[in-house]
């Protein structure tokens, strides 16, 4: 029997990499830490990361000259200048430490083999002598949108290896993990967050966890795209929905949704970018390598948003391969050879065999761009603090920290989980050590009663409403058709109307199974309203943003517009409102001035003000928000020389 009230110092919602790494930092600092997770932590979606983790170690020949500065610049270009550059800088500088720490935790990173190595680069087999003096150091593979080879990897199971190593530290530290638990609502009084109401997915019982600090680490919201996602079935965007429900905490850049170029068609299972990094090609129905003409410089290794658009255009132009499940293109990795495929890309080999019945050493892989990553999320500052509620933090894909802007580079998400876990975890521990627990039981039991009443009302409701699953499927079709890779005003308007209609229908959902216990249908019906609200936030943000930036592409506004849209969308859902309200903030201090990314279109609408003017405004805003220049160890060098931030 679960107690109705649990107290702890630090509460982490989500047992994936970001949440676990954050919990480790807090627990190691002596804070009593509890992790809630939908699934046993090792089953979190972090385990599905395949190809690699970006960190500028510069250990192999093709990584020579790499540095955290080059990584920073790649990340900002990848973001199409939507990123907070201070955060991108923190990230790039911490990533090598995070990779070495993981080696310390036991990750079996693939290592440099000194001497002759054969690689496939831009369609040619190349022999490179790796330095003998670098033998045994962590090696790298190529990924999209990077100037150097930078992705550290363990075959195509990098996320799995990293998650197991990080979870082993969670076990070692004795951190309490409550698996099969879903957070239902945040307990807050409008100024401060006190914890959550959660629901046990074994018994169906609700309970409260009160903490000094609450960390949202629930991952992305890919499942609002129904089955058109590479994401696991558990990626509902729970944490983002919880934050939105407060009416106070904003979500950032929800319209920034990444499509991965190579998901297996039609199942949507991810095939790593490492395939192209290791020399794989994309082919159209005539077996033509269309990316060579489309992107002469980067070819298949332009950023994901750019490659996905070229692929969809190729299909629109009639060069897709027809199949009963719609058109697709081909990924060709046959030339890499069976030995390479069964070692460095083993997981890809297995997926092709198990889910498409093909041997990629001899056959082409059917692929199509598919929803993959949520750049948007709970808007937090550099320390991971959510805007608006003290004691609330967010990390990883659930957060908009915001190092990815409008397009994340491959391998940067895995690196973000560890870096943000370290950085934000330290802040969380510091905050918890300076705070006393406010066990506001009155507030907690009111929230608990509200959650229980909601579940009871759903169970009792009778009528002829649609099932929660039908509404989910309808939502997925709307999102892929109208809020997909190519967007336009008319489709987005229509999507907004459609989603609002679904929200209305959702209030009449009738359960068919009313039994006690976990009740999987009830569990799904409880999360569906949150998914619909996130979807509406994505669609409205996309409709309002009349430019194209990174993964957000408007055919009616095809240019990036730095004059009007060098900004981050903030969405809040006011209490009782029927839709989110949008506002905007600057992307942050500019270090690397907006320019050409090095791939994709070189046309854009230039900003009018100077970088100095832009940065002064940002600094003034930061000071106004009470942030001292001396408070932040990072990024101070990015401040404008004559700014008002001193």
């Amino acid at each position, binding site marked *: 029997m679960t107690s109705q009230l649990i107290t702890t110092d630090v509460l982490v919602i989500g047992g994936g990499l970001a949440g676990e790494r954050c919990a480790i930092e807090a627990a190691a600092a002596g804070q009593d830490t509890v992790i809630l997770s939908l699934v046993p932590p090792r089953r979190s979606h972090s385990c599905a990361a395949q190809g690699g983790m970006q960190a500028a170690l510069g250990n192999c020949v093709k990584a020579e000259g790499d540095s955290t500065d080059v990584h920073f610049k790649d990340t900002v270009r990848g973001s199409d200048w939507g990123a907070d550059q201070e955060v991108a800088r923190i990230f790039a500088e911490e990533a090598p430490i995070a990779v070495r720490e993981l080696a310390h935790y*036991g990750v079996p990173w693939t290592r440099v083999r000194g001497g002759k190595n054969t690689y496939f680069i831009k369609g040619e087999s190349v022999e490179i002598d790796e330095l003998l003096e670098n033998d045994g150091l962590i090696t790298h593979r190529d990924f999209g949108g990077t100037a150097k080879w930078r992705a550290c990897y363990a075959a195509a199971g990098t996320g799995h290896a990293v998650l197991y190593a990080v979870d082993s530290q969670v*076990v070692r530290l004795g951190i309490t993990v409550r698996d099969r638990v879903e957070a239902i609502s945040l307990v807050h009084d409008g100024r401060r967050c006190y914890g959550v109401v959660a629901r046990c997915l074994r018994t169906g019982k609700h309970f409260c966890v009160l903490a000094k600090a609450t960390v949202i680490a629930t991952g992305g919201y890919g499942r609002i795209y129904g089955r058109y996602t590479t994401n*696991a079935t558990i990626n509902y965007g729970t944490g983002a929905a919880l934050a939105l429900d407060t009416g106070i905490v904003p979500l950032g850049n929800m319209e920034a949704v990444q499509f991965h170029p190579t998901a297996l068609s039609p199942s949507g299972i991810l095939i790593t970018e490492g395939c192209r990094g290791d020399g794989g090609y994309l082919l159209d129905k005539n077996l033509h390598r269309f990316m060579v003409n489309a992107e002469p410089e980067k070819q298949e290794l332009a950023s994901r948003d750019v490659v996905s658009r070229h692929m969809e255009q190729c299909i629109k132009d009639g060069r897709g391969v027809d199949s009963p499940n719609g058109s697709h293109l081909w990924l060709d990795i046959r030339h890499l050879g069976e030995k390479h495929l069964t070692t460095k890309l083993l997981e890809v080999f297995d997926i092709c065999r198990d889910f498409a019945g093909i041997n990629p050493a001899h056959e082409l892989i059917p692929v199509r761009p598919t929803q993959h990553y949520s750049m948007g999320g709970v808007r937090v500052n550099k320390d991971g603090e959510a805007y608006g509620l003290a004691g609330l933090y967010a990390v990883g894909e659930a957060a908009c920290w915001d190092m990815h802007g409008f397009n994340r580079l491959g391998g940067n998400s895995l690196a973000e989980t560890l870096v943000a876990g370290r950085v934000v975890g330290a802040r969380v521990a510091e905050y918890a050590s300076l705070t006393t627990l406010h066990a506001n039981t009155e507030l907690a039991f009111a929230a608990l009663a509200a959650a229980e009443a909601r579940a009871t009302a759903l169970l009792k409701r009778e009528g002829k409403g649609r099932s929660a699953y039908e509404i989910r499927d309808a939502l997925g079709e709307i999102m892929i058709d109208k809020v997909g890779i190519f967007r336009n005003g008319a489709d987005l308007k229509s999507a907004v109307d459609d989603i609002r209609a679904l929200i209305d229908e959702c209030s009449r959902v009738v359960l068919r199974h009313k039994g006690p216990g976990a009740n999987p249908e009830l569990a799904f019906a409880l999360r569906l309203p949150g998914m619909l609200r996130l979807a509406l936030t994505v669609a409205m943000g996309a409709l309002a943003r009349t430019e194209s930036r990174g993964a957000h592409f408007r055919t009616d506004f095809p240019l990036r517009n730095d004059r009007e849209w060098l900004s981050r969308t903030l969405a809040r859902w006011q209490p009782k409102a029927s839709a989110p309200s949008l506002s905007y903030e600057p992307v942050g201090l500019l270090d690397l001035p907006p320019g050409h990314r090095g791939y994709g279109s070189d046309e854009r609408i230039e900003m009018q003000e100077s970088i100095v003017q832009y940065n002064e405004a940002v600094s003034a805003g930061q000071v106004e928000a009470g942030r001292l220049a001396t408070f932040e160890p990072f990024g101070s060098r990015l401040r404008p020389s004559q700014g008002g931030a001193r």
Partner: protein
Amino acid sequence: MSDKETTAPRRLRFEIFRFNPEDPESEPRIDAFEIDERPYMTLYMALNEIRETLDSGLQFDFACRSAICGSCGMMVNGRPALGCRTLTGDLPDIIRLHPLPAFKLIGDLSVDTGTWFREMAERTEAWIHEQQPFDKSAPEERMSDDIAQAIYEGDRCIECGCCVASCGVANLKPDFLAAAGLNRVARFMMDPRDKRDDADWFEVVASEQGVFGCVGMMACADVCPKDLPLLEVYAYLRRRALGSKFLRDS
């Protein structure tokens, strides 16, 4: 006409174990469901279709649906397998599904593997017992790629529990580490970053709960969805447990 007959989908009959421990009125039973087979249908697709159209109380677990996360181990016609990658096309018209034995039942096909694996990790201290604390300014430590690959091979276990469910010993003795636990131990044993010595390892594996509990039926190796070399793992552990000192002297 004949064309229509050849394209008519196969009718699949699922016989599924049902029991909800949270429902006082629930009795263990088998429920039958019939659905039409679709091309490349997996048990992931079939079970979701059953839940969404026929019985929305049906409990089962899937997460990644790509054979990576290890959530969906279940008994498929008497054999442990991952539901997500099992094609109905490889199965007869009648498909019998049971929860994995040896784990605590949560409901229907859902079992508590998380608790089992956490306890195993705690008992075997399945983490690197490092020589030194992490020093973020220290230069990177080297490792030969051959050793890294060998560790990765052992690290590939996804803790789905199929080997545990298939193991005659684990089903009789709840404290037996089973193949998943022993493979995890072997993975740390071969890792030069782990400072535990033979005497430490002896305590962990050289017992009835460890490698000497295995009676050699090796169903684990037959059912492992990741094709882990479990025969070699057991041989390696026996060798290390029995003769580490002896081998070093010879």
